[in-house]
């Protein structure tokens, strides 16, 4: 047997993940860790955990970790990066953290062109607190706090983060990916790797939005969740590159 596929990346510590069965957080964790391994930066990487399901990322990534208050990961990451410019700094944030309470910090870190990577998990719901409406919850989507379905007239409209950030100067990469099938997982990894490489090249703020599932709070099996993601999430959150300054960087 010459090749082994699926071995745990070194940057992902050998501990069981606390996530629910079928939660795509696990896939994204592995991708980030694989990228850290491939770039050989674990020894100079610092991750910033946010509040929500992904709060425990500090237990999973092998690099140094800071846990930030809800929504403040971009500010904490800014502090780390400014103090240790040689460190590779990333945040790992959910949609409530990044797009609701932390939108201010996110937009301003982006506008500063802060040299950090944001891994943004969009699963259209608050997971940790048990399935309430997120800023990304789709119109009509039933959650604990939109029991009759999200009515944009009263509950507002879902925010398309990559589209929004694509208008901000300072953003080097804004790309939306998903992890519903092996092909898209590979594409997601490529985007994450590009984001880290852009940071190392000093290009500015990079965000990789991963359209994800939450089988538990969506009330579906992981398989059905994947299908629901394709049928409902992707039409509202189209995959693609919303901004990429490329090799030359921003003018």
């Amino acid at each position, binding site marked *: *047997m*010459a*090749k*082994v*596929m*699926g*071995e*745990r990346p070194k940057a*992902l510590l050998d501990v*069981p*993940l606390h*996530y*629910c*069965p*079928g*939660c*795509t*957080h*696990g*896939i994204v964790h*592995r991708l980030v860790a694989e990228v850290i391994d491939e770039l050989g930066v674990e020894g100079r990487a610092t991750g910033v955990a946010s509040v929500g399901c992904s709060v425990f990322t500090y237990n999973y990534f092998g690099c140094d970790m800071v846990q930030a208050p809800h929504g403040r990961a971009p500010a904490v990451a800014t502090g780390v990066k400014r103090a240790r410019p040689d460190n590779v700094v990333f945040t790992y944030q959910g949609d409530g953290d990044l797009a609701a309470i932390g939108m201010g910090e996110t937009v301003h870190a982006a506008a500063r062109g802060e040299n950090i990577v944001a891994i943004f998990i969009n699963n259209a719901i608050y997971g940790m607190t048990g399935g309430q409406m997120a800023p990304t919850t789709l119109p009509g989507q039933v959650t604990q706090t939109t029991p009759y379905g999200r009515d944009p007239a009263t509950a507002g409209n879902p925010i398309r983060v990559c589209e929004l950030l694509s208008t901000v100067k300072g953003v080097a990469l804004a790309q939306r990916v998903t*992890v519903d*099938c*092996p092909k898209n*997982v*590979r594409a997601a990894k490529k985007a994450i790797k590009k984001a880290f490489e852009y940071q190392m090249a000093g290009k500015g703020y990079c965000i990789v939005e991963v359209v994800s599932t939450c*089988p538990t709070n969506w009330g579906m*099996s*992981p*398989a059905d969740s*994947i299908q629901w993601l394709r049928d409902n999430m992707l039409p509202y959150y189209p995959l693609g590159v919303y901004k990429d300054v490329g090799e030359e960087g921003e003018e």
Partner: protein
Amino acid sequence: MPKVTVDNDRCKGCEMCVIACPKEILELDHSITNSKGYHPAHVTDAGKCIGCGSCTIMCPDCAIIVEVERCPRRYS
């Protein structure tokens, strides 16, 4: 012949590998219940495995490894 190994303790029985397998040779093994109460996945017909790695790519828990003679081109 490719060899698929499932870590029964880490598997949460989510079936992400089951739906990802192009040869439909993965399913949950209801005869086993792991310490967390899950039925882990297992290979039903090892002879049909093409070693594509889809199961391991889709596994959220790093619970599957696939050993092959030669790595498929797509798996980087």
